Every structure is written in structure tokens, then in C-alpha cells.
């Protein structure tokens, strides 16, 4: 972050930032499992999730409601109540293990090294405190500075995220902001301590499409300025295409495809992703009936055995024996391209995609 000549201080007491190698993982999730014991049974929200994100890269995690994308991301910040959630596996941020980290250490970590922005800025900002107050609170939780200094920093951040007249806005309440500005304010609050990891949980879902574009640009700009790793959770493939470097597709609590965005969206290898592409309505030509994926996502209380997608998969018969119903596929490269992985037993998914799926797409 460039030095301000106006006398507004940078974040104090931070170790000098090393030049990002670009490939070394800043966030590393390994075999993450999140389960919730409930009266109705064990909810397996996340099963064996693994991925990594280096600095300056954006990973989009895509999935339907109930795919486990939000649960897994909240686990990264240690936001689950440990009395209620059972978490196993490893989450390393900047080398530090988050799973089972002590509450005290978690407090220092959250908002400092890693921050999160949430879906609905209206309900996610406290209605009784001014926006400036809430930003200052985050800043002062991690830096020992006076209120005056913190307020200057808050005004600076509000300006950075594109809010006009920040010195007036800093004393206003969230309900006095418009939807897009509220989200900008939340982004300002998340970034006030220069976090190296930013998790954005559907930040534009609650906003108008025009505002959405602005927010996406803002996040991309800030990532460039701050050099942070970004995890972007969304169900909107259009957003993914715009801002992500890599994509992770989740289904029923587990990753089914993972790799660079161009490859995954251009030539997906998993029947679920094929179904998603087929279900996109054609914008030109004759009106056609829609092709949704038949069936619906499974309840996480009763995840299907073997491959979780098998009840809805039309290619089950291409797989020998009953692997699909009994054997859970590993997330490994399925083609000669080692840079992308998929969780499916099919032998030649790239061929199947080219010959059977692609012609069906509009």
C-alpha cells in the first residue's frame, strides 16, 4: 500500500510484506470436514475439501445453496461455534493452523490477517452504530491508536472504496447509505487492516446488476493494490468469468472440479458442470424449453454413497460395475492436463464433453 502524503498513517506494527512469490499458497485447506450433529442426524456440510490460494490470486467457489461453500469459508475464519460444529482437517493461513486455534489467537487473526465480507450489507452492519464507528472499531482492535487516528483512517478507507464525501459519511448510520454504498463500506471495514486474505461471501447477490459491476471492479482494484488472496463465493457463473483466476465447483459439501477458470468454464469435465452449462438459457434463437439438471441437490443429512452426484447423473452407465454408487471418486486430474482436477469416475470426460455435451449447448 502506497504511503499517504497527507499524514494518514499506514497500518502500524506489521511485518514487512515480502514480495509475493505468486505460487506459494497463502490459504491452504486440506481435507476439511465440517459436520453439525443435530436432533435429526449428522449434517455433513463439508466433506473432504482441499484447495489452496496464493497471494494475488482470486479463487471463485461456486455452488448451489446447500453445497457447503459458505460453511467452508466461515470455517476458514474460525466463525463456527465449536460447541455446535465438528471441524476436522487443516486450514492454514500464512502458515498458521486455524482449526482448533485458541479463541484469543483467533481474535488476533480475524480482521487482521484475514477478513470477510458478507452477503447482505444491510443486516451485516450494526444498525445502531455509525459506519465510521464500526470501521474504527476494527482498526483499533488490531492497532493501538487513538480515536482520532482511527477516524482519519476510516475516512481514508471510505474514500478508497469510492464513497463520495467520506468525512461526512463517516458519521452516518448504515440505513442512511444506499445498498451499493453499504457494501462498499463493508469492504472498507474488511480491508482497514490490510488483510492478506479476503473472503467475499456472495457480496453482490443482494445488489443491482449495475452496482454489482462496480463492486466487482472495486474488489479487483483493491486486490491489485493490497496484493491479497481473494476467495469469492458465488452461485453466478457470469461473475466468476469476470473476476476469478481459478474456480472450485462444489456439490453436496465436496469439490467436484477445480482448476483455472478458462479451462473449467470452457471445457468442464464433470457431469454436474455440464448440467450447469446446459441449464443456461439461450439468449438468441427460437424460444426453447429450459434444461435443468433433473432431480435436486441431496439433503446433507443423507449424502448419497459413492459419488454424491450419481442420482442425477446421466452418464452412470459409462462407468464399470457400480463404482458410481459405491466408490467415492478422488479429486484428481482426469486428463493429460495436470493443472486441473475433477471428481468423477468417467474415463474420457474430455471426449464425452466434446462429442456429446458441446453440441447440445446453445
Amino acid at each position, binding site marked *: 500500500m502506497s504511503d499517504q502524503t497527507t499524514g494518514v498513517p499506514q497500518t502500524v506494527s506489521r511485518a514487512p510484506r515480502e514480495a509475493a512469490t505468486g505460487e506459494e499458497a497463502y490459504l491452504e485447506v486440506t481435507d476439511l470436514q465440517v459436520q453439525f450433529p443435530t436432533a435429526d442426524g449428522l449434517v455433513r456440510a463439508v466433506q473432504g475439501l482441499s484447495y489452496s490460494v496464493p497471494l494475488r490470486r482470486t479463487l471463485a467457489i461456486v455452488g448451489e445453496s446447500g453445497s457447503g461453500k459458505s460453511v467452508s469459508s466461515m470455517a476458514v*475464519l474460525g*466463525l463456527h461455534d465449536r460447541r455446535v460444529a465438528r471441524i476436522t482437517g487443516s486450514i492454514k493461513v500464512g502458515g498458521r493452523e486455524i482449526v482448533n486455534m485458541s*479463541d484469543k489467537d*483467533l*481474535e*488476533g*487473526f*480475524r*480482521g*487482521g490477517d484475514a*477478513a*470477510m465480507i*458478507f452477503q*447482505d450489507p444491510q*443486516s*451485516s*452492519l*450494526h*444498525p*445502531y*452504530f455509525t459506519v465510521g464507528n464500526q470501521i474504527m*472499531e*476494527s482498526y483499533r*482492535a*488490531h492497532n493501538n491508536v487513538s480515536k482520532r487516528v482511527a477516524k482519519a483512517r476510516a475516512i481514508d478507507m471510505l474514500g478508497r472504496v469510492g464513497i463520495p464525501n467520506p468525512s461526512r459519511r463517516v458519521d452516518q*448510520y448504515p*440505513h442512511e447509505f444506499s445498498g451499493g454504498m453499504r457494501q462498499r463500506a*463493508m469492504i472498507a*471495514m474488511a480491508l482497514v487492516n490490510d488483510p492478506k486474505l479476503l473472503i467475499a461471501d456472495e457480496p453482490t447477490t443482494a445488489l443491482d446488476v449495475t452496482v454489482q459491476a462496480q463492486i466487482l471492479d472495486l474488489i479487483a482494484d483493491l486486490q491489485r493494490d493490497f496484493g491479497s488472496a481473494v476467495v469469492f463465493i458465488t452461485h453466478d457463473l457470469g461473475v466468476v468469468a469476470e473476476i476469478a483466476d481459478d474456480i472450485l465447483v462444489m456439490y453436496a459439501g465436496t469439490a467436484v472440479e477445480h482448476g483455472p477458470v478458462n479451462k473449467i468454464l470452457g471445457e468442464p469435465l464433470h457431469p454436474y458442470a455440464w448440467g450447469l452449462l446446459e441449464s443456461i438459457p439461450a439468449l438468441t434463437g427460437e424460444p426453447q424449453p429450459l434444461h435443468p439438471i433433473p432431480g435436486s441437490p441431496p439433503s446433507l443429512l443423507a449424502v448419497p454413497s459413492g459419488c454424491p452426484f450419481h442420482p442425477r447423473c446421466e452418464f452412470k452407465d459409462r462407468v464399470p460395475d457400480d463404482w458410481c454408487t459405491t466408490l467415492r471418486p478422488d479429486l484428481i486430474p482426469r486428463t493429460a492436463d495436470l493443472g486441473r482436477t475433477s471428481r468423477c469416475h468417467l474415463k474420457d470426460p474430455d471426449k464425452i464433453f466434446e462429442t456429446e455435451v458441446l453440441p447440445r449447448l446453445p
Partner: protein
Amino acid sequence: MKEEQAVLLYILKRVLSAISVVIVTLVASFALFFFAPTDPAGVICGPRCTPERVADIEASLGLDQPKVEQIALYMKGIVVGREYSTGGVVRHCDAPCLGYSYTLGQPVTKLIGAALPVTVSIVLGGAVVYLIVGILSGTIAAQVRGTSLDRFVVGTTLVVQAIPYFVFALLIALYATFLPDSGYHPFLDNPLLWASGLLAAWLTIGVTNAASYTRYSRASMIEALGQDFVRTATSKGISRRRVVYRHGLRAGLTPVVTIFGIDLAFQLTGAIFTESIFNLPGLGLLTLRAFGQYDLPVLMGGVLIGSAVLVVMNLVVDIVYTFLDPRVRLG
């Protein structure tokens, strides 16, 4: 500037409507009392009464005048004072004149003036106890919801709420002998004595009402702690205590404040059980006695105080609410 003017205007409107509510209540109570089969003059007259004596008393008390005139005279008395003739002596009753007690031989204003501080002391002191105990235990229970501590707290409130209030008060009066003797001593004379005389009453009111406030606070805090902004606060890395007490409690407190305001209004009209059991001469005892003796002016005074307090507390709660929640604007 505009904002403050709007607020003042609103308060003015509310005050005016409050006054009209009180007037309507007064007139209604007046009518009720007079169409009731009571005979104040007969009561004053005593067992060996003659019709002539009754007529005399009625004349001196103004009871033989048309009802409308009586109400008008009463209203006039409140504003500018009036004259009373009892037993041949004409007394001047200064404004605000709430009448003259038939049975106690004193201006009602004076009686209420003596009883009100007692009731206020009892109620406010008790409120301090039950607010602190109730809100704290409710907040703690909300945080450990589902655990045995939570169940213990809720179970205790159920037990306390199941015991009738006067039973509780009697038990304390009889068995809590380690507490100082109760009785009212004016605050200005000796604050320490004032406090020790009220301790038993405060404890009783505090414990019994705390149960309700524990439940209100617990429910409200469970909801507040489940809000998105609490999750956001946690994600900022601030301490758990700050998240609960600054972010959670601020939001969770507003419904409790509303309930408290109305609760307080009702309690201020007189805590009959507390005052009788602990021998504290407050509004409760005053109006209770007046009932038995058909002492209309005192009863009217009680109604006036009660409705005025209720209406004022409503307004106060509304105003306090705007300070708590910036999204709420008066009017």
C-alpha cells in the same frame, strides 16, 4: 436544527394529547364513582345517622350540586384552587387542588405528596435490582443456551414466577430477619436509614421481577446474538465480551427497555402488597384505604396520578427508543 424543532413539536403534541387522555380518564372515573351505589356522606356520618345530618354533610361537601358542576369545580381546583367548607369552616385549597379527603381530613394533594415519594423509592430501588440481575442473568443464559447452566437459570425463573408475589414477600418479611427493619424514612433526613428501611422491599421486588426480566432478556439476546451483524463483529476480531455486550446487548436491550417503561408505569401506581407487608405508607395503601371508605377525592387523586404516570412513561419510552435506535424517528 430542523431535526430538533421537529422533535420538540412532537413532544408538544404528545403532551397535549396526554393531557386530554388524563382529562377523559378523570371524567370517566368521576362518572363511575357517582353512578356507583356508594354513599360517602353516609360513611362520614357514621352509624348513628339522621337524614338531616347526611344532608348537611352533603351540602358542605358540595355533593348536592349537579354532577357536571362538581366535575367543573374539581377541574378548576386543579388549576387555580378552590374553597371547601367542612364543619362550618371554610378552607382554601391551593392549586393544584385535588380535593379534600372526607375521612382523613387533609387535602388530597398533601396526602399524595407524602405517599408518592415512598412508592417511587420502593419502585425505583426495586427496578435497579431486577434490571441488573435480570438482564445480566438473561444475557449469560443466552450465551450458554442449551447447556445445564441455561436450564438451571430458566428453571429458577419458572419456580420464582410460580410463587405468588405476596407469598414471597411474606416469606421474606418473616424469615429474612437478618435484614434491617422495614419502614419509610425520608431520604433527605437520613439517606442511609432510608435505604436500610427499604432494603427488604427492594430485595423482594427485585428477586420476583428479575425472573421475568431474565426471560425477556434471554429471549431477546438469543435473537440478537443470531443476527448477521454479530457475526460480522466476530469476524472483525474484537473480543467475545465486546461482541456480546456492545453489539449484542445494544440490540437486544431495546425490547426490554420498552417493557420496562410500561412495567414501571404500572408499578408506580402503587405496590399494594409490598406496602402492606413491609409497612410502607405509599400510594398503594393510600388508595386501598380510600376504596374501603369510599373516599372519592383520594381515589380521584390516585386515578389522576396513575393515568398521568402511564401516559408520561409512554412518551418517555418513545423518546428513549429514538436514542437507542437511530433508525427510529419521532412522529
